[in-house]
């Protein structure tokens, strides 16, 4: 759809948008402060949003600080993107029931998929969502659960006005402002929001908002803000050519990382594009019913490379290589671009304080 000139919405009128979404049958999801981090969960009003909070991040650290700026979205990100919403960490794919005569029946549990509107989605996470769409929806096989949830999703994106020290979306080309893939995009200014629609669905809501024409000053401020945030990002992931990391498997830095890496899988769990999962059965004691469960898994885990009597990757080094080479290198062959959208989560949530970007730059040869 055509790019249109944004309009302006007063700060407190954001609640009108929320009301409209609710009236349209959407459940609201949005950022909020929980247990010392900004997490997405259901919200009921603007007061649930993390006003006046800001995240301070560096490898292995995430702290919320009170911010004098009373904006709703003046922060970078929290431990999870949209992934848990569309691709739950644990779900029952089907149940098997066995009757006394031994015959097995397979039952897919009936689920109702709610329509969900997410408020405050960041550019890096939209980029990640596109990659997950590609993986679960655009290949030969379409994941039915993902598809059903995805169809009911409405995205209200926010252009970042702040970047944490771990952010590097500029260098991956995914942020700090959104370009496509959203229904509504907001640019938060002190007194309100510039609002733009990114889809017809989004447009339908805009027509019902008390919008004003954006002033030239406001448009300037938005441009200025974009540039300031981009400039805030000192971290850069240098470009990696296809095959470049895979060819560097002998680089001594891998072993250096392996001494520090705990192979705990946290990076893969917070990564918004990681898709690995395993499937397990859970029998009830009576034995007449079993749940077939699908759960997030990680290439740092044991079952990922396990074959009968043979472990494909039995060292931390080999597992770290799988993670980084897949994400930054072979991903490009699989999906036409790297699997990294610059959100920085794998660094902040790494208990060993490993700096993924710095390590990739070293192995990729950028730092030499």
């Amino acid at each position, binding site marked *: 759809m055509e790019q249109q000139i944004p309009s302006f919405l007063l700060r407190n009128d954001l609640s009108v948008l929320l009301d409209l979404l609710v009236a349209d049958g959407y459940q609201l999801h949005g950022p909020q402060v929980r247990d010392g981090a900004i997490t997405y969960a259901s919200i009921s009003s603007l007061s649930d949003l993390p006003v006046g909070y800001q995240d301070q991040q560096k490898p292995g650290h995430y702290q919320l600080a009170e911010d004098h700026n009373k904006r709703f979205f003046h922060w970078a990100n929290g431990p999870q993107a949209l992934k848990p919403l569309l691709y739950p960490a644990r779900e029952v794919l089907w149940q098997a029931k066995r009757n006394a005569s031994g015959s097995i029946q397979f039952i897919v549990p009936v689920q109702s998929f709610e329509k969900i509107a997410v408020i405050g989605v960041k550019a890096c996470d939209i980029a990640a969502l596109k990659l997950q769409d590609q993986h679960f929806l655009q290949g030969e096989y379409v994941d039915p659960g993902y598809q059903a949830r995805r169809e009911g999703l409405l995205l209200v994106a926010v252009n970042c006005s702040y970047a944490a020290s771990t952010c590097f979306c500029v260098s991956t080309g995914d942020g700090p402002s959104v370009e496509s893939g959203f229904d509504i995009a907001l640019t938060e200014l002190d007194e309100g929001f510039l609002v733009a629609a990114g889809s017809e669905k989004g447009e339908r809501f805009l027509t019902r908002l008390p919008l004003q024409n954006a002033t030239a000053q406001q448009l300037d401020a938005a441009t200025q803000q974009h540039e300031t945030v981009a400039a805030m990002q000192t971290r850069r992931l240098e470009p990696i050519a296809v095959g470049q990391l895979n060819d560097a498997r002998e680089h001594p830095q891998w072993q250096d990382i392996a001494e520090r890496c*705990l192979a705990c*899988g946290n990076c893969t*769990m917070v990564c918004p594009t990681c898709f690995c999962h395993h499937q397990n059965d859970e029998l009830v*004691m009576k034995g007449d019913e079993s749940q077939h469960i699908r759960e997030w898994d*990680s290439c740092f885990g044991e079952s990922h490379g*396990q074959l009968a009597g043979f472990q494909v990757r*039995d060292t931390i080094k080999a597992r770290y290589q799988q993670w980084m080479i897949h994400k930054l290198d072979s991903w490009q062959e699989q999906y036409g671009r790297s699997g990294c959208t610059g959100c920085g989560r794998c660094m902040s949530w790494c*208990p*060993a304080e490993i700096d993924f970007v710095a390590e990739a730059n070293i192995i990729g040869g950028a730092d030499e």
Partner: protein
Amino acid sequence: MDRKVTLAVHKFSSCDGCQLALLNMGTTLVELAERVEVKHFAEAGVLEEDAQVDVALVEGSVVTAADEQRIQRVRNNSKYLITMGACATSGGIQALKNLAEDPESWTAQIYPQPEFIDSLERSSAIKAYVEVDFELWGCPINSQQITAVVTQLLSGVVPWDDREKLCIECKRRGHVCTLITQDAPCMGPVTRNGCGALCPAFGRACYGCYGDASLPNHSGLAVRFNGLGLLPKQVEQRFTLIHPDPDARLPIGNSDKQRHREGQADE
């Protein structure tokens, strides 16, 4: 072969907490008794200590000379022996005395007449004495672990041994990391999953009650703990609370060869 699979529950030195995974099962316990014949389970009132059974569940560690002999009998009487919990699997919290410089003196400090006390110098895991077919880690184990192990054995299959890291489960459940946000010395990165990441759910650091996960990088985590301001002795104490016995630890880079053992309860 329509004979019911037989089961015995034996107790060695322990707090009884793991047996509660059975006794707290409620109606599932009755369902269990419908599928297997419980031959010995003193706490539940079934007594036939020397019965031959297909499956023996063993709680507790070996700490007396009499225990040493009894565990041999248990092994000889059972086809498939499963340890329940930290005590049986690694020696448990009471193996803290294995780290003591002079454990003998402890008896004297507590008992006016230490000569009456029969206690070996070490608290040992069951596997230090007899071959163990399957281990249930955790202090305590939970009812789901029992259900999983029993139903898989009844299906004629070796139980699945999940040695994944706690962090993975913690993230699946959407808990906010205590190490990253609170600088809490969380053991999750080296601890095996099984509890469902309980401590982080309560906003506190894991203290490692499920023991080592596969590929544990202890020294790597210790570096982080040092960085949080813990002194070397405190780091050591953190790593040696529930599974103190060094023999029970998994080495870094353990490549999981030979994870499956021969033999199991025949249907």
